Structures are given as structure tokens and as C-alpha cells.
């Protein structure tokens, strides 16, 4: 009897929890619509503690933007972009906020790497899956043509189409895994307050650069130091900053 009760409780609590999350986005949206941005922020934040979704991050970014908190807006747009890079609204707002925050540093990585990264972020994970499925379907149909038809020109074309289809499958998978990698290994962070980048984690280190809020940095090594992390700027410069000054995307 006890066991059954316990089970019922668990199921109920799970259900309740899900129900709570369900209503939260709508509540946040309606608070946003009436201009209660700080309340909307807290609602979205509670929701995101349990489930994450690109749309919620995007809306949270909007709410922070309305509260003129550009660093947090940028952080949440970056998170939304990470989960759903193909959404035009996310891209638009992200570039808008990037332009508004200080400290845009030139990227120094290679052109090819940048290009491949931007190709992979043209579509989101689901869309890349669809591309891969489409490629597989094309490859199979082409193979059937190749195998069963007697006409030589058709067989030649079909052979090429099989290769193309398989390449598309490969492309879709590579791009999807690329995005997944960055979702699972979050090394990029946004500076939330103006901070000095030092050349070593010690207290008497020299200041190399001053980072302003909104600057994007990448964690370099996982060496644990109390309250200090090693980071690299987009232009390749490396240094140490206090870990409380950044939020990981």
C-alpha cells in the first residue's frame, strides 16, 4: 500500500512539474506583452532551470534588451543561436545587440574554418537531419534506377546521384555533429562586467587588456584555479580573468 502511494505521489509530482513548466512560457510571454519585463525575466529564468528551448532563450533575451541589460540579452541570444542557428529573428537580434555592446575584436581564425562554421550554422539540427534524410532517399532511389534500368545514360546519371546523395548524408551529419559539439561543450562565454584580463592567475599579475561587458571570450584550459579561468579573446590573445565575471553561453 505504501509503495503504491509513493508511486502515485511520484507520478503526480512529475505531472505537476511538467504542468508548471507548460504554463510558464505563456505567462512570461503575456508579462512581456504588457511591459512587465523584469517579471517576465524571472518567469523565463525559472522555466529555463528545468527545460531549455531556443524560443525561451530568445524571449528572455528580448526581455533583457527591454530592461537595457545588453550583456544578458547578448548571452541569451547567443544561447538561442546555439540551439537554433537558422532562425532569422534570433540572428537579427543577436547581430543588433552585438553591434550595441562594446569591444568587438577582430577574429583571427582562418577563413576556411570560419566559412565551414557558418555553413554548419545555416540550418538547425532538425533541418540538417532532414537534409541527411533527403540525401539518403536520393541515394536509394538513384541506386534503384542504377540497378534496375537498362538504359545506359540513366545508369550513368544514377551512379553520380548515388554519390551525391551519400555526400549530402555525410554533410548533414557532420554539420549536425558540429552543432551538437558546441551545445555539449560550452566553452564560449560572455563577459558580464568590465574586468581586467591578467597574464597569470596570481594576485600580482599584470593587466593585459580591459574587457567590457558583452565581450565574447572562450575558455582555454580546464585548469581549476580558485575563481580564475584562462580565456582567449577572438583575436587569439590569452589571459586570466575572475570566473565570476563571465557567464557561459
Amino acid at each position, binding site marked *: 500500500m505504501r509503495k503504491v502511494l509513493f508511486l502515485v505521489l511520484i507520478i503526480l509530482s512529475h505531472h505537476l512539474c*511538467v504542468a508548471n*513548466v*507548460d504554463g510558464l*512560457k*505563456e505567462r512570461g*510571454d503575456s508579462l*512581456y506583452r504588457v511591459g512587465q519585463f523584469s517579471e517576465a525575466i524571472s518567469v523565463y529564468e525559472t*522555466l529555463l532551470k528545468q*527545460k*531549455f*528551448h531556443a*524560443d*525561451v532563450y*530568445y*524571449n528572455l533575451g*528580448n*526581455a533583457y*534588451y527591454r530592461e537595457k541589460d545588453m550583456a544578458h540579452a547578448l548571452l541569451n541570444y547567443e544561447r538561442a543561436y546555439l*540551439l537554433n542557428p537558422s532562425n532569422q*529573428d534570433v540572428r*537579427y*537580434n543577436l547581430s*543588433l*545587440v552585438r*553591434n*550595441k555592446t*562594446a569591444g568587438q575584436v577582430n577574429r583571427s581564425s582562418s577563413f576556411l574554418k570560419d566559412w565551414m562554421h557558418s555553413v554548419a550554422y545555416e540550418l538547425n*539540427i*532538425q533541418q540538417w*537531419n532532414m537534409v*541527411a*534524410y533527403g540525401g*539518403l*532517399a536520393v541515394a*536509394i532511389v538513384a*541506386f*534503384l534506377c542504377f*540497378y*534496375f534500368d537498362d538504359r545506359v545514360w540513366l545508369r550513368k546519371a544514377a551512379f553520380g546521384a548515388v554519390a551525391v546523395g551519400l555526400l549530402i548524408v555525410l554533410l548533414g551529419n557532420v554539420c*549536425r555533429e558540429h552543432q*551538437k559539439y558546441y*551545445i*555539449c561543450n560550452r566553452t564560449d562565454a560572455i563577459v558580464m562586467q*568590465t574586468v*581586467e584580463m591578467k597574464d597569470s592567475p*596570481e*594576485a*600580482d*599579475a*599584470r*593587466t593585459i587588456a*580591459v574587457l*567590457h561587458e558583452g565581450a565574447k571570450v572562450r575558455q582555454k584550459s580546464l585548469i581549476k584555479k580558485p575563481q580564475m579561468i584562462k580565456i582567449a579573446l577572438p583575436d587569439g590573445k590569452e589571459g586570466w580573468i575572475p570566473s565570476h565575471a563571465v557567464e557561459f553561453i
Partner: protein
Amino acid sequence: MGTLSAQQPSLRLTAPARVVCGEEFKIQYVVNTSDAADLSEPKFPSAFNVLYGPSRSVMSSYQIINGKQSSSSSVTYTYLVSIEKAGTYTVPAATAKVKGKQIASNSMHITALPAEKESKAQPATPQTLSGKDLFIQVNANKAQVYEQEPVVLTYKVYTRVNLRQLGGKMPDLKGFLVQEVPVPQQKTFRVENYNGRNYQSALWSQYVMFPQQSGKLVIPSIKFEGLVEFPVANDDFFDNFFDGGGNYTQVKKVLNAPSVTINVKKLPLPKPQNFSGAVGRLDIAARVLNKDIKTNENLNFRVSISGVGNMKLIQAPKLNLSPDFDVYNPSVTNNTKLTAEGIKGSMVYDYIIIPKKEGDYEIPAIEFVYFDSESKTYVTKRTKAQNIHVAKGRELTLEEQSLGRQDIRDIHSRRIDLRDVGESTTSGNSVWGGYLIILLLGCGAFGFLLRRRRNGQNENIQMRKRANKTSQRYLKSARKQMKHGNKVLFYQEISNALRAYASNRLSIPMSEYTLERVCAVLSERSVPESLTDEFRNLVSLCEYIRYAPESVSRNAGEIYAEAEKLISNFEDVLK
């Protein structure tokens, strides 16, 4: 000599600023024309001991540059003087008459340093060279400073020997932002008395240091390497004669500049909330650069922070404008110079503001809070609030409106299913499921097509069997008719055999059977033209004979063999 000397006649006094008691030195009065006369005897102070003078020397030069002649000449009156008592004296002015006019010279101060106590110390030799003959002194202008307050560190070299080279490097300092003050490459040495000895001294290098943290910060001892030249006394007459007697040896000498400790204090607490981080003596000013302000046109607003301090670490001031203005990040112009007092000059922040609505507005005062390093307090400076009138400007084109990026796009309010969020995007199971479905569909299609092809092949075989069977039957009956000598029936059976074979083998129903159709199908299935012609000839021959049996010259057995061969040839070709 057509040229006139345009320059004004002048009388100039030159003498060293510092001398040592008992050592003789020159005081010179120089007139820049040759026709000067009657230098008035200057009245030197009583401590001056005029050893010789005045001696008058005339110098003139003459030059042609690009065909233009010019000449200059001067007269120098020289006194050789020594001073007996240490102190500061005034070298008096003198007057002279030039072309009947009386002109006066400047006067100057001269400091006489006491003579050294050790009377006539031996000049140092490479063996006796010590830290007393050559050393470096460090001086910090303040021993105790606040964070970010600049400290000037001066390295001065003192020498009594012939110093040819000196090099040393400031190490990377932790806790300081270090900037080197540029000093001339060519060092000027002057006499200075230090611990009772007179040295040639020169400012070697100077650094402005901004402490970045509090506590006792140590600037370590710096190693300098010097090269000292000593004359070599050589008694050999011939060597002296040929080398001009100037033989030198060079000796390397390591000098250690002492370390310096600076006590850096934390800025006093509590820090004001809007403290800008600036330390020094600073001021802020702001003004609108435009004459007319119109909507959708740039309004240039300039804020400048000027003074002395840690200028480079100041953040751009924030403007608290109404939302009717778009403010862009300022462009920063650095008009500062590093001086011994710190970074001096101004930082200019140029904001571009775009008013969106017409009307009267106020650009609010900008508050700038810094730590004044002199009064040791936090000081708040305010710019004046400015009233501006925004007139109606041009309208934005549609393109500009879309490019203007005025605002973010609206939130996404579509319903999302949160229940399986977080798993579907990252887990791989659903992906492979999709592939599996597609592969299974592909396999199904493959199986279906394979079966259809196999059925088709079976049909083909059956068709061939039936074709052979029926044609053989007709051929058999034709043979029988041939034996019986029944020519008409024989040809009919041959014709039947061919027709039955073709219709069955090429799957042409009897109702649609024509010779043309057969030929068309044969050429479609790429049967050689010759074979088709043979077939057509044989069939028409049979038809012909049926109606005119007597006209045939050919043997029935030949025809029979031909028909049989034709069928077997078709079997070879049609697979």
C-alpha cells in the same frame, strides 16, 4: 658685398652652470658682428679669481649657397676664471658698442660646488675602478601612493670615468603598468656633487608607473652593463708618435641600480557608486558640435576628459538620453602625452547621436567621479546640462528604416512542446530511427522491383517456349505437306510457323499482327537489319506462292531449311 647682415647685433654671455671650486673655467662674451668695440669690463664678484683675460678673438666666415653670398663674423672676449668659495653667484652682464649703439648681454647664475675633500684623488684605473667612480641612483618621486596614482622612477648615472656605453633593461613588473618617458638618446652630462665628490651625472631613463594593486610593491634591482674607457700611459716615443698617443683600453663594468619599494594604498572606502576608476587631477567638458540639429541626422556630441592621471584606463562616460535618441558607441581620440607627472592631455569621446523626434530636449549633465590624488578625496565633476532644439529633418527612406536596426524583433509566442525538449535535439536515437525507416523503405522498393524483374524474366522464358512449340508444330505439318507434294499447303504452314513464332516471341497479339508491326518491334529490340529483311522476304515469298504456286523456281526443301535457320537465328539474337 651687397648683402646686409640682417640680424640684430647682440651680445651673448656663455659660461658653465656648475663648476667646482678651484677649477678654472671660461666665461665668454660673444658679439655677433666684427665691428664691435669697447667691451665694458664686467664686474665679477669678489670670489671670482680672473686668471687671464679678456682675450679678444675675431672669427669670420663667408659662404655662397645657391649663388647667394653671406658672411658672418663675431668677436669673442674670453676670461679664464676660477672661483674660490662654494656658492651661487651671478655672472654680470657686459656692454659693448656696436655702430655707435650700446648693447648689453644677459647675465647668468653659476653654482660653484665645493672642491673635493680628498685632495686630488687619484684618477681611477681599470684596477681601482669601484662603485664610487661609477654608479646608478634610483629615485621615486613618491614613496607612498594610492592605486593608479603615477610614480615617476628616475635612473640617474654618476660617473668620474669615461663612460662609453651603458645598457640596462627594465624587467616586466607585476602590479604596475609601466610606461617609459622618452629621454634624448644623447645624454647630457653635468657636474654634480655627491657625498663630497664631484661627478658627471646624467638622467639615464625615466618611467611612469601606475600601480595596479595595493600593498608594498618592489621594483627590483636592475643590472646595467657599462663600458668604461681608460687612457693607457705609453712611454714608447714611437708608439706615441704613430698612434697620436691616444691609446685606450675598454673595461666592462656591471652596475646594479638599487631596488625601490613603493607603498601602494588602497583607494579610500567607501568608493562612490559611480566612481569612474580615474585617479589624478582631471576635468570633464561636453559640448554639441552641430549648429542645427535635425531629426534622423547625426548630432555630434563631444565629451573630453582632460588633465593628468591614468587616462588610458578611463571608460567612456555614459549618456543618459531619452529614448528619442539613438546613441552609438563613441569614437575615442587619445590626445595624451606621457610626462613625468603621469599621462597628461585629454581623451576625447565623440558620440554620434541620432534624434528621432523633433522638439526641445535637454542633454543631461554627465557626472564624472574620480579620485583626486592631491586632495586625496573623491571629486565629482559635472558637465553643464544642455538644451537643444531638434528641428524636423528629412524622412527616412524605407531602406534606411530597415537598415536602421531601430529595435529588436518581437518575441516568439508560438506554443512549444516542452515535455521532450532537451532530449530530442541532442540525443541520437531519433536520428538513426529516421535512417532506419528510409533504409527499410528502400529495401522494400528493392525487393519489389527485384521480384517484378524476375517475373518478367519468367514470362520471357515461357514466351520463348510457346513460340518454339507452336512454330515447331507448324513446321512439322509443313514437312508432312512437303512429302505429300502439296505445295500450297506447305507454303501456308511455313507462313503460319513464322507468324506464330513472331507473334508469340515478340508478344504481339494475333489481332494486331501485321508484317510492319513485326519489323518495327524487331528493330526496336535491335535485331540486325539483314535478319529482318530475310524474314520479310520469306514471308512475302510464301504469300506470293500461295496465289501463284506454279511460278516458283525454288525447291521446297530449301525454303523449309531457310525457315528453320531463320527461327534459330532469331533465337540467337533475341535473348
